[in-house]
């Protein structure tokens, strides 16, 4: 054998592994960002990976909002300029650059995944275009943001940040799931930008709820977490972590997944029928097609679930309009982008123009009822989360898949309409 030949092969493989990336970040200040009160069309750039449901919903949520707003005829006409980010940070940056230089949009919304959203922030700051993020939970999306600094153009309308998602999951585990008999928990999470801080906080909270949440969850004693494993979006098999959790006696596995691998995870669970219940963030699990593929009866999905239920006066009309137009259920970021476009438009109407600074000032005053609930921003321009009082901010919900594939809200009880959590058919809790 010729070892020299294999050295060439090794080099070639290394090349193959790195050959497909390209970057380009040359955004300059948006010429139209200074705005014009006389502008009649509000151009909003929306980006997301349109090959997958998460990105399709960003696009379609925005288009639906624009269609409704234009039909109402109040305020400036909305024009959505969509850019496919392919869930790649460099492509997302290129979208922002295009919005600023070529399309000359007055605002931006959308984005799916914390990785691509975090990547575009510097470009957004330089372009000085208001950006209402609608698909990233990483706390760092609004890191250092305030009313006056270069980050003032950045807002997040949804989902609530990872820390608050973790608080809500911790609250649900310690105050609801334990009462249902679950005693040992495990965490199975995607190796993703939003998940790392979420898991870190969740572990601390599950160990000592009161200490981690500064008394917001008034429980000194936590629950047993017997294992934590992570996987990538290309992971194909889950037998090993399932076995590990089963061996350690876990009877509830908290899943955290934002990509399509969530389908494989749900299908593996439903096929293998391990003796533990499973639930948590599974964005793919919110889609209409999910249950037909997985048959994951009894799987819990939350806290960032999207369900047709009277969360607010706008929720059911939105779901009916979205399902009527697109023949599928919206995911959480379809909801968030829809709300984001409305929020931007309402700010433009209040501002009486489309100037970036005026939009920022009015966005900061946002206090509206959206599809997801009460939407207000805190000092960091992050949407406010309220675990127990829906009038103070977004409250989160959990649904469970029923045997007929329908989604029933089980937490919070105020939205559950009498539905209660049911053990998955193959799970038996031994006391």
């Amino acid at each position, binding site marked *: *054998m*010729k*070892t020299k*030949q*294999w050295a*060439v*092969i*090794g080099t*070639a*493989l290394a*090349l*193959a*592994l790195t*050959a*497909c990336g390209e970057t380009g970040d040359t955004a300059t200040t948006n010429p139209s960002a200074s705005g014009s009160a006389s502008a009649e069309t509000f151009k909003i750039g929306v980006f997301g*990976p*349109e*090959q*997958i449901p998460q990105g399709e919903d960003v696009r379609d949520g925005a288009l639906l909002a624009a269609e409704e707003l234009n039909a109402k005829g109040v305020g400036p006409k909305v024009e959505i300029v969509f850019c496919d980010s*392919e*869930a*790649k940070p460099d492509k997302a940056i290129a979208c922002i650059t295009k919005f600023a230089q070529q399309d000359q949009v007055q605002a931006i919304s959308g984005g799916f995944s914390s990785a691509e959203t975090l990547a575009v922030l510097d470009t957004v700051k330089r372009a000085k275009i208001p950006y209402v993020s609608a698909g990233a939970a990483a706390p760092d999306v609004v890191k250092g943001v305030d009313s006056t600094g270069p980050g003032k153009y950045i807002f997040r309308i949804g989902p609530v940040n990872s820390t608050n998602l973790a608080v809500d999951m911790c609250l649900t585990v310690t105050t609801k799931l334990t009462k249902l008999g679950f005693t040992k928990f495990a965490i199975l999470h995607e*190796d993703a930008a939003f998940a790392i801080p979420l898991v870190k906080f969740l572990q601390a909270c599950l160990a000592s709820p009161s200490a981690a949440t500064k008394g917001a969850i008034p429980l000194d004693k936590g629950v047993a977490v017997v294992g934590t*494993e*992570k*996987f*990538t*979006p*290309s*992971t*194909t*098999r*889950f*037998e*090993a*972590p399932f*076995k*590990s959790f089963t061996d350690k006696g876990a009877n509830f596995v908290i899943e955290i997944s934002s*990509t*399509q*691998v969530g*389908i*494989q995870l749900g*299908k*593996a669970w*439903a*096929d*293998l*029928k*391990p003796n533990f219940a499973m639930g948590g963030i599974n964005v793919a699990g919110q889609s209409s097609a999910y249950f037909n*593929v997985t*048959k994951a009866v009894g799987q819990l999905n939350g806290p960032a679930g999207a369900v047709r239920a009277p969360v607010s006066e706008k929720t059911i009309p939105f779901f009916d309009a979205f399902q009527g137009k697109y023949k599928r259920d919206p995911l959480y970021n379809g909801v968030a982008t829809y709300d984001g476009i409305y929020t931007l438009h309402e700010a433009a109407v209040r501002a009486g123009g489309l100037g970036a600074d005026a939009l920022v000032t009015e966005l900061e005053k946002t206090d509206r009822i959206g599809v997801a609930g009460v939407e207000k921003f805190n000092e960091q321009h992050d949407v406010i989360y309220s675990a127990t009082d829906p009038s103070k901010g977004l409250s989160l919900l959990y649904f469970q898949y029923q045997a007929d594939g329908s989604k029933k809200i089980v937490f919070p009880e105020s939205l559950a309409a009498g539905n209660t959590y049911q053990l998955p058919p193959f799970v038996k809790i031994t006391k």
Partner: protein
Amino acid sequence: MDVLVQGAITSATIALVALGFSLVYGVGGIVNLAHGSFFMIGAYAAYEATEQGAPLPVAALIGVAVAMLAGVLLDRLVIGPIRHQEVAVLIATLAVAILVQSLVQFQFGGLERQLPGFVDGSVSVLGVQLRQTELLAGIAALVTIVVVLLVLTKSPTGRMVRAVAEDEEAAVLVGVRPERVTLYVLAVGAGLAGLAGVLTAPYGVLTPTMWLLPLTQAFAIVILGGLGSIQGTVLASVVIGFLDRFVAFNVKDGSIKIGLVTVAVILATLIIRPQGLLGKVAR
């Protein structure tokens, strides 16, 4: 027991990919860096067929057929004209692999897609709970490997292939056309890789980069087994398959470390025993 049962299935499915890679090298001396692309082409072709309404078994056949066609095209259009220039073949097939990735990205987008399962549910094998679709993939792969080995060892076609692999000039003297044999082997090897892609897709995900891991594993297997050695390929498939599952079950976050272990096997073999377990020191 989990490692044993699941390792057997993994070994069978990765051997499907590695066999074709090894055969093509054995017969034509061709290191085909586009071999992992056949795995991807088979899976995506089956996926597209299901999207167009084809029943899954039909879609699976379409996937294998398209992969074989891709193998034929690769031989006719790319490898044929430069067959005896090793480095040129290496670079050209790498270019094809990247081109195929780009085309798949263009046509299907960059993110994950799923092929429906052939069967749902699970079954217990030696006390290990297995997904039926995974078991089916393992059995189908094993049967295919046995058939390929029987054809290679017992049939006139197999003798022709082995004749070219052992001494091309002598094979020419007795009327065998090496180019034609290489074409057949490349088509069959592509079909095997395509079949592996189709069989594993229901419990995997389809992405434009899904060709890399099977190619890396095929590399590891043929290097560990010995270049061009079919017996070595089968033996090394078993080693890599069990190692894959051993890491998954015994190392924390093992599922995301399998690729690293595979690369480590390649490097270790090249350093410690470059000819592999059953390979010759020099061709």
